[in-house]
C-alpha cells in the first residue's frame, strides 16, 4: 500500500469524502490509498481532479503533479510537508479565494474559412496548379490557412471573453487541439465563478463550455526564493 498525493491544503480544512487528510502543524496533504501493485491510471486521475475541484470551492489548495506517491503518512509529513512548509504556505496564501476555470470556444469552421479567404490579400497563391502534384507545397499552403484560421479564432475569442478577462486575476492559453477551438484557463476570484458561468452560457457565435472550479494547476507561482526541496 502507498499513498497517491493529490494536493496540499490548510490543516483546518474538513476531511473530504473518499480520501485521507494527513496533517502536520497548519498544513495537510489530501491523499488517496493505492493498493499494493496498483499503478495510478486514468480513474485515479479523475478521482484526484474531482476531490480537488470540490475542495477548491471551500479553500485554497496547491495541486501536486499526478503520480506523486509517498510510502506512508510519516513520509508525507517528513518528506513533503516539513521541508516545503514555508513555500507551501506562501502558495496557499496567494491562491486563497481563487479558482481556475477552463473555457473552450468552438467556432464554425466554414465561417472561419470564409473570413480568412475574404481578408487574405494573397488568395492567388492557393490556386489549383497544373502539372505534377507537390504535396509539400500543398501542406505548406494548408498550414498557412490553418495559422490564419487560428489567428481569426483567437481574436474573436478575446472579444467574446473580454468580460471574464476583465475580472480574472490571470489567464493563459491551454494547448491547442484544433484551429477553430480556443482553449483558455482563467484564474478567477471564487465569487466571480457564477457570473462567468452565466456569461459563457449566454455566448453566441461559438459553441461555449466552461469547466470549473479547478485547482490552480496553470497558475502556480514561479520558484520561490527559499526553494530547496522543490522541482519543476
Amino acid at each position: 500500500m502507498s499513498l497517491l498525493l493529490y494536493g496540499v491544503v490548510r490543516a483546518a480544512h474538513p476531511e473530504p469524502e473518499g480520501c485521507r487528510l494527513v496533517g502536520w502543524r497548519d498544513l495537510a496533504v489530501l491523499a488517496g490509498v493505492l493498493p499494493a501493485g496498483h499503478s495510478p491510471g486514468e480513474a485515479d486521475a479523475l478521482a484526484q481532479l474531482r476531490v480537488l475541484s470540490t475542495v477548491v470551492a471551500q479553500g485554497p489548495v496547491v495541486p501536486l503533479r499526478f503520480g506523486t506517491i509517498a510510502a506512508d503518512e510519516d513520509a508525507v509529513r517528513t518528506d513533503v510537508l516539513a521541508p516545503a512548509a514555508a513555500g507551501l504556505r506562501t502558495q496557499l496564501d496567494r491562491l486563497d479565494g481563487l479558482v481556475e476555470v477552463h473555457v473552450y470556444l468552438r467556432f464554425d469552421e466554414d465561417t472561419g474559412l470564409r473570413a480568412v479567404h475574404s481578408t487574405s490579400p494573397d488568395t492567388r497563391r492557393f490556386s489549383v496548379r497544373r502539372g505534377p502534384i507537390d504535396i509539400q507545397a500543398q501542406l505548406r499552403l494548408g498550414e498557412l490557412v490553418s495559422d490564419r484560421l487560428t489567428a481569426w479564432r483567437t481574436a474573436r475569442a478575446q472579444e467574446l471573453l473580454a468580460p471574464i478577462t476583465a475580472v480574472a486575476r490571470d489567464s493563459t492559453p491551454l494547448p491547442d487541439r484544433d484551429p477553430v477551438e480556443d482553449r483558455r484557463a482563467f484564474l478567477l476570484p471564487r465569487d466571480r465563478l457564477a457570473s462567468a458561468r452565466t456569461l459563457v452560457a449566454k455566448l453566441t457565435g461559438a459553441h461555449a463550455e466552461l469547466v470549473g472550479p479547478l485547482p490552480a494547476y496553470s497558475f502556480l507561482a514561479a520558484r520561490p526564493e527559499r526553494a530547496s526541496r522543490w522541482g519543476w
Partner: protein
Amino acid sequence: MTAPASGGGLADALNILLDKGLVIDATIRVSIIGIEILSIEARIVIASVDTYIRYLEAMQRLNAVSSGTAPTVAHPVTHGIAGALPASPPIPVGAVPAPVAAAPPANP
C-alpha cells in the same frame, strides 16, 4: 452551454494533471500513461495533414466562387472537361434517358 465540474467536463481537463502541478523531489513519481500520450500525439499529427489539404481545397473553392467560375462538379479531375462542355444534367451510367420529343434521336 456550461459544464459544471462533473465527470464529463473534468475529463476534458485531465491533461493538466500530467504536466502541471507541483513536483516534490522527495517523493516517488511514477511514469504514467506515457504510451497513451504518444498515441494521442500521433493522432493529432495525422489529423493535421488531412486538415491542411482540406483547408487548401476550401481556399480553392472560395477562389472559384469569388471569380465566378465555380465548377458544376466539385472533383478537381473533371474541371477541364466540365469547363469545355455545355452544362447538362449528369446521366447515370446504364440508365435509359426518358424520350424527349424535341431532342434529336441519340446515335446507337
